[in-house]
């Protein structure tokens, strides 16, 4: 599943799939205030069933602001473990600054 934004919104591509029973959300592009709500709704649609774990693959995220943190924060509260896979330096920096590094499983 993919969604591509254009126009006033920042451009983000969302892909979701299931890996050994764990949903994986792959984000690439830019994630900010202009499209955070859209991304959130796409993700919550994808997470229809109950799941204990959730993986965010952030390898393609070129830019993220505090809206992305809000996205991760709400995910953390919904499942037992949130894995942040391949965070780019921008994502890693933001996660560290906002104290989420301690409650996320960051790989590698």
């Amino acid at each position, binding site marked *: 599943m993919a969604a591509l934004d254009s126009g006033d919104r*920042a451009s983000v591509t969302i892909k979701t799939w299931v890996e050994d029973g764990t949903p994986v959300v792959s984000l690439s592009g*830019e994630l*900010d*205030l*202009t499209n955070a709500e859209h991304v959130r709704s796409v993700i919550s649609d994808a997470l229809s069933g109950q799941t204990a774990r959730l993986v965010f693959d952030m390898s393609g995220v070129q*830019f993220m*602001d*505090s809206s992305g*943190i*809000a996205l991760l*924060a*709400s995910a*953390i*509260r*919904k499942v037992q473990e949130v894995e942040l896979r391949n965070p780019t330096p*921008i994502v890693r*920096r*933001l996660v*560290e*600054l*906002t*104290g*989420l590094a*301690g*409650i996320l499983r960051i790989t590698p």
Partner: protein
Amino acid sequence: MALMSPPDGGTAGSRGLVRGRKALLAAIAVLVVGLVITGTLAVVTFRGHQRTEKTLLALQTTLIADAGEAEDQLYVEDHLGAAATLAAATDGDVATFRRAMSTSVGTGEPFVTGSLWRLSGSSLQLMTQVGGEPLVPVTAALLRQAAASKTFVVTELAAGDALRLGFAAAASGPDGTFVAYAEEALPAGRRISEPAGSPVAQLNLAVYLGRSQDSAALLETDSSAPLPLRGTTYTTQIPFGNTFLTITTSPRSSLSGTTGQILPWAIVGGGLLVTVLAALLTERLVRRRESAEQLTGEISRLYMEQRSVAETLQHALLPQQLPDIPGMEIAVRYLAGASGVDIGGDWYDVVQLDDHRFVFIVGDVSGRGVRAAAVMASLQFVGRAFAQEGYPPATILDRLSRSVDIARDGHFATVLCGLADIDAHTVVLANAGHLPPLLLSGDDAHFVTVNPGPPVGIPGPVPLASAEVKTAANDVLIAYTDGLVERRGEILDAGLERLQEAASKDYSSLDDMLSGIVTELSADTPTDDIALIGLKWLR
């Protein structure tokens, strides 16, 4: 409440009046233009019709003149003129004259009477007479006039009700001059009637002797209308003997058919109808557009009002006055972002504990809107309450974490909390996911990185860490929300660097410094709210 109060009645009323008048003016303009066009078209059509009528009338009148009246001229010349010529050639042979006149004098013929006169010197001699008696005795003057004229002479004769035209034509022979004289009876009362099929039937016709249209000169008419003819008329004059016949006509009905006659009136009627409809339509359209405009204005006014209410609420939630703490200078800034009517959840607070200790808090509730503001309000009250109880910053943040839950409230908050002891020259800081404060000490400016815990509202297994920072006189600590440093499409560290640079410049006061920082860092149209607090140690 201001939001609920109806719009000002007077203003709305006068606006309505202006609106109505504008629509009316537009309708009147359309009406005037429509009337002018209709009138012009009608006049042009009417003129066109009149021109056509006149042309047709001229054409028919010329035909009549050529066919009818000119024939009279020829007839008189052919018969009377010929008789005179014969007489001159035959030396006044009476039999020849009588034979010549036999076809034109008598019952059913044009002439009532005819006679032949010999003119020699000053003597006049009646040679013979055919038909009836002349209406009045033939005068010598008339005969002499005929003898002097190149063509026949015409005179009008009247006796009682009887009217006649007298003609005299002269011809000179070797034995003298002979004058042939004849009279033609005019119709009774000078009235003639044309048969229905005649081309003259649709015209009023009046024939005058001479060039004038005096009633005395009238020879014959078929008009029931008073003379002289009025309205559309055409007059032509044709030579008749030594004088002229003036023929005047006017149409009895439209010569070019009824369409031409009706058309101007049809245009007037149709034009008026279309004009009135267009005016009504214009009035309605203008009115409708204006009410749409007014609606737009109303919506934008309500929007602005709502926005202003939200901003008022936001400002009301922030401390109206900061405590005056000896040994400290404190300044704050709050800038609302331009994100529609939604207010943000940024806040700051300063709580004095005693004469040398105080707690400061800077927080940012995620998301926007009234709910975010409500979460902010509750966090502010809880934070203030626990601060006043003298709890250390890490504990205050832990307590805050219990009053908001992202799963329940949909919001979380990043909060920085510090407890300053002015006498001990220390600040104890705890950080729940908030951006690190900037400490300016001498020439040095660095971010105080306290190992941050997760934002309040997101439960984390790790107990919050706290760190102690030493302070000296003239040190400045700046805490802020992310609206100050975040810019779309830019990494956070760039914003932090900008802040570091802006704060390191020379300022005359702490207040100046905050103004400078805000000017330097806030975008032209900041989307997010900005809360900023500056603390300066005076000792």
